[in-house]
């Protein structure tokens, strides 16, 4: 259990660092802090923590998608992960309009 928590912590930390420097491939250039500040809830509310993880997942998925070659066998898996995070964001009714260009880009890839 301790290892699981430590691993999760490292994973979260890595995502945190990643979100501080979004790749240049993503069209959305905002930090997660800035995105959270644009939500309907206060940034310090507990939902903000969940939203932060979801936004981390979205950035992670987008970075992997943009970096992957079109023939990359893992590309489809990255798209599925992104769409799952996207669905979670929608479930939390997050304002993700800043990702719209990226969402459109991923949608075209699946058509």
């Amino acid at each position, binding site marked *: 259990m*301790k290892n699981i*928590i*430590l691993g*999760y*912590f490292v994973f*979260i*930390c890595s995502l*945190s*660092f990643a979100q*501080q420097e979004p790749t240049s491939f993503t069209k959305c250039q905002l*930090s997660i*802090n800035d995105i*959270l*500040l644009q939500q309907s809830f*206060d*940034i*310090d*509310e*507990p939902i*903000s*923590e969940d939203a*932060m993880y979801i936004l981390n997942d979205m950035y992670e998925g987008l970075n992997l998608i943009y970096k992957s070659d079109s023939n990359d066998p893992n590309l489809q898996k990255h798209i599925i992960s992104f769409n799952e995070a996207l669905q979670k964001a929608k479930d939390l009714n997050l304002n993700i309009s800043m990702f719209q260009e990226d969402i459109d880009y991923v949608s075209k890839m699946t058509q």
Partner: protein
Amino acid sequence: MKTIRFTITLFFMMSMLSYASAQCGPTLVEPSAHAIGFCEGTPDTVSFTVTGQCSGNYEYEILTSTNTVVQAWSNSNQFIINTPITDTYTVNARCSTCPTVVATDTFRIEAINIPTIAIDSLVCYNSPTTISASGAAAGSMSWWDSPSNGNQLSSNENYTTPPITANDTFHVHVEGTIQGGTTQGSILITECGLHGFPGSSSADYIEVSNLYATPVNTSGWVVALSSSYSNINGVNNILWNLPSSFTPCSMLYKSDVASQPNYWGNNILWNPNQPGWAAIVDNVGNLVDFVAWGWTAAQLAGFNVMINGFNITLGTAWTGNGCSSACQGPVGTPYSLSRNGNSDNNNATDFVCQASSLNLLNPGLNCGWIASDFTCSYPAILKVDLPPTASAPDTTKVSCYADVPAPSISIITDAADDYTANPTVQYMGETSNGNMCPEILTRTYRVTDSCANYIEVEHIIIINDTVAPLMQAAPADLFIYCYSDLPPMTSLAWTDNCLGAGIAQGIETSSGSTCPEILTRTWTVTDTCGNTATETQIITIFDTIAPIIEAAPANLTIQCPSDLPPMVSLSWTDNCAGAGVLNGIEVSNGKTCPEIITRTWTISDDCGNTSTETQVIIINDDTPPTASNLPTLQLAVLPPADINLITDAADNCGTPLVEWVNDSSDNGFCPENVVRTYSVTDDCGNTTYVTQKFIIGDYAPDVSFTAAPSFLDNLSSGIVQFDNKTTGAVSYSWNFGDYSPLSNEVNPSHEFDISKTRNYNVWLVATSEYGCVDSTKVPIRVFQELIYFIPNAFTPNNDGLNQTFQPIFATGFDPSKFNLKVYNRWGEVLFESYNHAVGWDGTYGGKIVPEGVYGYIIEFGLDHSQEKKVITGSFSLLR
């Protein structure tokens, strides 16, 4: 219902009380110093400063460590220290309108009592003595020459002085130590703002305070924050690096408001009712302070994070729950978990969870104080029996040895001493400085007190003759012209105050110069001290009178150098040198015409007095030479100039120079007149001009002749005889104008062609003896006589004969002016013609006129004149 009303009233009163408590009262009281070293005998004061809200007066109370009141509640914010009692005191402050709210602080007074000093009451001058101190701990006392910052004289309580020569004060220093005061003694997390603070209603912040009384090197120290409400091990990825030097008694903070100073760097995920924590980790991984809320002791036991490279757990040093997630906790219980055995208990005093007083040091916190040393200084005054005093007598001045007074102690009039009533006076002796003028005698007197201290005073006697001798006056100064006028030198008498009287011989010195030569005659007498009397006579020998010379001859002006007279000698006389004869010097100015010769006779005496006589002779020839003009000549050609023709040139001073000057012509012809000029010049440039006139050639002849006849007609012979009337000619040339050969006869005859009317110009050219030529002409006219025929009848009958009436002209007729008019008997013009070749055909108006007599008028010009000829007549027309 009654219960409800009571409950509401109670709630309202509690709310008001709570409100009043929150608004009124001190939040902080600070003494002016936390550690005071108090020296007995030197009162000291501690003053207090209060922070808070008070509509009334602040009141203060001072307690000892045993809670004994040493200064009861009063408005005085000062504690005056008079009693040397060492203790840790507590100051309480309150507001008179809400006295239940009390702020407290402590301060330490460390006291040193006055030591006992053993010292002699009086010390003889220049003698040592020993002083001692007691009453304080051995080793804490030492002797110094000043209260502070002086020189240490002894490192213990005893001090033996060197020989003392004056009253002096020494200082015993007693050292003490102020115990260190209690202190929060930590770098503490003093506030966590979970939701808002003044100026930003929804932001989070954290305050960290240095509660040490000294700066703390916190280089490498970080502050870490939680980042999750569900995972206690979630750490905000921003760490706060504390400064290398954390200012004592100060607070630092960070907030997550990007627009304000001290931005954390990202959002601090803290929220009321949600758990969180904050930690300070030093540069070696020690957990310096840790606060938590909303987490239980069991959850805190699982705290295990990586901060700044260090794995951080709470371990056994930290126990208990965090305060509630709403930052609430029962009074008296920790608001957060606390560190075992540490004053940092994270209670409401040193940590406020969900605070809202950003950038304000928490009330109730103080920085304590640290142990320190201090020193008290106490004086020891040493009195000395000083030597007696006496003034030196005034210096006595005399001129001669005979005036020096005898020694006497009565001359010391003011001998005195601080502890001896009548000090003794003795004459010790006399010394001389061995000099003269002045010679200084020093007489010594000794004054002694009961401690055998003495001083010596000196009586100075100066023997110095400053009065000069007196001498008889010298003769008056003289001015003479010659040495022969110099008088002999005399002797002068003198007297002196110490030496008596005598006779002085004078000496004579010359200036060594002449004209003037200054002779100084000096009489001098000097006494033993070099005072001198001097008399002087100045005799000036200066010849200022020039010699006298006989007058020079009068100035002259002459024409020629040969006229210059010989130079004569002049006699002279002088007041010092006698008389003589003087030759002159002749000097020319080196020029001529005029040449100025100056003859000068000069003589100077021994003093350079000079007399001069001068004669000026001007030699200037201003008389021009003479010569006669030459006779006029008439020649065919101008001859060359010849100066030898001027045979009578002469000058008053010598032979003049003859030169040809020019020939001036009038550019005439027949004849040309030329004037030739010669110059005759003497040595001074005086010039006379000689001229000679030349007539070159002769006059032109006067040409004239006559012709007979000059009119020729066709009826003449055509021969003309010419009569030559020319004068002044020697040869002739005739041109008859008909291209015939020229004739050189004097009176020729010539036959002209008379067959035609024409004019001939006959020219005669005559030449004189020297070739002068002139000419003239005479016209010869040849004309034809008038010959014509006018018929008296004509027959216009078409028979071919005499068909028209017209005149017939043979010679002498000029047809250019021809006009023919034919009239009938009634005067009517029937015909008119301007052409002598066209005649009347006997018709008029196209009809044949009848036979009859008709008249005519014929006009025509003549060949040899301008006249018109008019002929009238009648003729008959026949059929």
